[in-house]
C-alpha cells in the first residue's frame, strides 16, 4: 500500500511540474491519472528507493552531480577536439573493466556515467565485467587506465546505494 501511495505522490508531483496549473479540473485529472499509474505499477520492485531518502546518501547524491558534470564537460571538449582535428586523432577499441558494485541501480548509473564521460561508451555488462568502447585507447596499460576512471564513480555510487 505504501508503495502505491509513494508512486502516487511522485506521479502527482511530476504532473504538477509539467502542467503548472492549480485549478480544480487539472488537479483532479492529475490525481486520476497518477492513481491509475501508481496502481498499474504496484508490482514494480522499488526496494532501493527508500534507501535513497537517507540524508547522508542524499548528500552524496548531490555531491555526485557537480563531479559528474565536470567529467561531462571535459568529455565534450575532448570529443569536440577530436572531431574538429583535421587528422581525426582516434584510436578506438573495446576494453573490459571490472566493477565491485553489487546494487543494480548503482550499476545502471555507473554505466550511464561511463557513457557520458571522456571518450567511453558502455557496450555491455556481463556479470561484473563492463565492456567499454573507447574513442582513444591509451597505448600503455589500457585496462589500468579505464579502471582508474571507474574507481572515481564507484566511490560515489557505493556511498549512495550500498
Amino acid at each position, binding site marked *: 500500500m505504501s508503495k502505491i501511495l509513494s508512486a502516487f505522490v511522485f506521479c502527482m508531483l*511530476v504532473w504538477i*511540474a*509539467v*502542467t*503548472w*496549473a492549480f485549478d480544480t479540473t487539472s488537479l483532479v485529472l492529475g490525481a486520476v491519472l497518477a492513481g491509475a499509474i501508481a496502481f498499474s505499477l504496484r508490482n514494480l520492485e522499488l526496494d532501493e528507493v527508500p534507501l535513497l531518502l537517507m540524508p547522508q546518501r542524499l548528500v552524496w547524491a548531490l555531491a555526485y552531480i557537480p563531479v559528474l558534470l565536470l567529467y*561531462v*564537460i571535459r*568529455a*565534450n571538449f575532448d*570529443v*569536440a577536439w577530436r*572531431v*574538429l582535428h583535421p587528422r*581525426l586523432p*582516434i*584510436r*578506438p*577499441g*573495446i*576494453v*573490459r573493466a571490472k566493477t565491485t558494485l553489487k546494487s543494480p541501480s548503482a550499476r*545502471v548509473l555507473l*554505466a*550511464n*556515467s561511463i*557513457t*557520458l564521460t571522456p*571518450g567511453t*561508451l*558502455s*557496450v*555491455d555488462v*556481463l556479470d561484473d*565485467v563492463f*565492456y567499454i*568502447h573507447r*574513442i582513444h*585507447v591509451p597505448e600503455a596499460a*589500457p585496462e589500468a587506465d579505464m579502471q582508474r576512471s571507474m574507481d572515481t564513480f564507484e566511490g560515489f555510487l557505493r556511498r549512495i546505494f550500498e
Partner: protein
Amino acid sequence: MIDFGEPLHLIAYVVMAAGLAFDIVGCLGLVRLPDVYNRLQAGTKCVTLGTLLILLGVLIRFGFGAMGVKALLCLWFIAMTSPTAAHAIARAAHRAGFPLWKDSVVDQYAEDRAGSKEVAP
C-alpha cells in the same frame, strides 16, 4: 531584434549558443567519425550536453514557471535516457555483427564472447 533587456537574459542566450555549438560539433562528429561506435560517442556526448545547455538556457531565461519546470524535467529525462539508448544501440550493433573500424586497436568484448561460445554446450 532580440531584446537582451536584463543581464540574466544575456546569460541565457550565451548558454543556448554554447549548447548549439556543441550540437553542431556532435552532428559533425556523426559525419566524420568512421563507425557506429565512434559515431555514438559524438551522439552521446556533444549532443547530450548541447541539448542540456539549450534547456538550461530556457530555464534561466524563463525562470521557475510553467516553461522552466518543463525544461528542468526534460533535462533530467535526456540525461538519463540518452546514454541508455546509446548503450542499447552499441550492444545491438555488436551482437548483430557490425565490425569495428579497421584501425581499431582492440575488441575484448568479441574475444570474451567468442570464448564463452566455445565453452557453452
